[in-house]
């Protein structure tokens, strides 16, 4: 406010900033317009439109697909909470040094090796069909429950590694300072290392969050009526695939903002690190 000559400069700067934006906008519209024109003027386009982009079918299937999508979101949120906690426990097991904690360390290492090495789909089939088939008394038989368990087991292996990289990225001097102050190993982790590690891993963890949101669709193969399953049911009845497009739109509406947030946080993180270097 106090820099008076700044006003004129800012106007020029605004024009300078606006021009590239306009050029980008125009070229984007031009390129995508041309592509769009050729696609829609192709002779096969009406058939494609009818099969995949029929507004009528999208509207007709939407209530069921949206209901399924809510189921997907519920599974997603509950799994996220469980993965966040369970993976943190495993990462802490992994970070505890000293001979007494060797069994916990070995357990965490084997766990990650096992569940990161198996396809999530295999686990979903194994748990979702296999465990209910045992008919064990006292255990839930819902496919949704066991499919969720499979996702949690699989994704927590990745999340453990993300936590671990965050813990290892905290400078060794922090460990030494905490030890020199007399903090126990657990206190060092709890008060000195983890608060910094958790901040470090937010962007990487959000990537997993987005991936999990989509992989919830794996549960449709064991009969969970999520968005994909509901869309398939509609497709099987009408031979029109627009319901899957409806589901796709819902997924994109949910994942794209999250992905943008992740990008934003990653950029901010990088800037903060660069500042730290300077």
């Amino acid at each position, binding site marked *: 406010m106090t820099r008076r000559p700044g006003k004129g400069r800012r106007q020029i700067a605004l024009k300078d900033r606006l021009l590239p934006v306009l050029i980008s906008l125009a070229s984007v519209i031009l390129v995508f317009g041309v592509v769009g024109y050729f696609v829609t003027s192709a002779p096969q386009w009406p058939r494609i439109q009818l099969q995949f982009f029929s507004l009528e079918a999208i509207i007709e299937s939407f209530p069921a697909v949206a209901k399924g999508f809510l189921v997907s979101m519920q599974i997603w949120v509950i799994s996220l909470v469980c993965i966040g906690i369970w993976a943190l426990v495993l990462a802490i097991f992994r970070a505890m040094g000293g001979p007494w904690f060797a069994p916990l360390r070995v357990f965490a290492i084997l766990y990650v090796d096992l569940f990161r090495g198996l396809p999530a789909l295999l686990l979903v089939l194994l748990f979702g069909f296999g465990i209910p088939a045992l008919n064990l008394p006292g255990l839930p038989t819902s496919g949704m429950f066991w499919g969720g368990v499979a996702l949690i087991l699989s994704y927590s292996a990745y999340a453990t590694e993300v936590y671990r990289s965050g813990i290892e990225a905290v400078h060794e001097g922090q460990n030494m*300072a905490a*030890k*020199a*102050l*007399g*903090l*126990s190993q657990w*206190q060092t982790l709890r008060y000195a290392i983890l608060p910094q590690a958790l901040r470090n891993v937010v962007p990487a963890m959000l990537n997993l969050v987005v991936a999990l949101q989509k992989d919830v669709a794996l549960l449709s193969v064991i009969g969970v009526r999520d968005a994909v399953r509901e869309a398939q049911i509609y497709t099987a009845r009408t031979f029109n695939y627009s319901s899957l497009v409806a589901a796709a739109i819902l997924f994109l509406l949910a994942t794209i903002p999250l992905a943008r947030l992740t990008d934003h946080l990653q950029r901010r993180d990088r800037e903060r690190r660069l500042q730290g270097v300077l």
Partner: protein
Amino acid sequence: MTRIVIDKLTKFYGDKMVLDGVDLSVAPHEVVCLIGASGSGKSTLLRCINGLTEFDEGAVRLDGVDIFDPAFGRTGLYKRVGIVFQAYNLFPHMTVLQNVTLAPIKVHGRDRREAETAALKLLDMFGLGQFAQAYPEQLSGGQQQRVAIVRSLATEPEVLLLDEVTAALDPELIGEVLKIIRDLKTSGMTMVIVTHEMGFARDVADRVCFLDGGRIVEQGEPHRLFADPQQPRTQKFLERIIAAGRLEAAR
């Protein structure tokens, strides 16, 4: 009467011997400076004194008790021997006050309010009172290092180890940290100081030890050692220091 006794301390990093049977004793209220080239073992020696670095042979005793004696408990040694590092190693996610009160509250079980009052008094004493609620990254290097010193004093140690505490600082910030160390000497703190500031070592130390190849090659009263080194290796080291402009030739 001695406070610290280091007895034939030997340490290997792999096959490399970094400490070669070092003997050193420090009297109460004495200030001992360790000087020497990089890799001479002085920082390693310092960290052996409070058990931060493990050693292979020999012993360190505090007031006649081996530092690994169970009598110290898990935290007793760290309470009685504080250390300050070259890179400050403050916890960046905690305020200055939280940094200073962490050990008194969590390790030594002091009441939070009581610990905070004591910490604020200590921060005031070192001219840092107005930074109590600031985060480390908001402070200059010199201020951060002063906070690190206050943090190590918060548990009221009897011995303070200082590991090249001015080496990471801009030249104009070194003075404020060195002043605190001088004040601590006046208050009677026993200190072992690893430093490259030869002028400071000469002024503040009661005794200077020159290390080379993991041994104390020469030690003595600072003015004598800097003005008239007896050992060829000490002479050579000091010549290089003077040539580099880090110590005005006193001879």
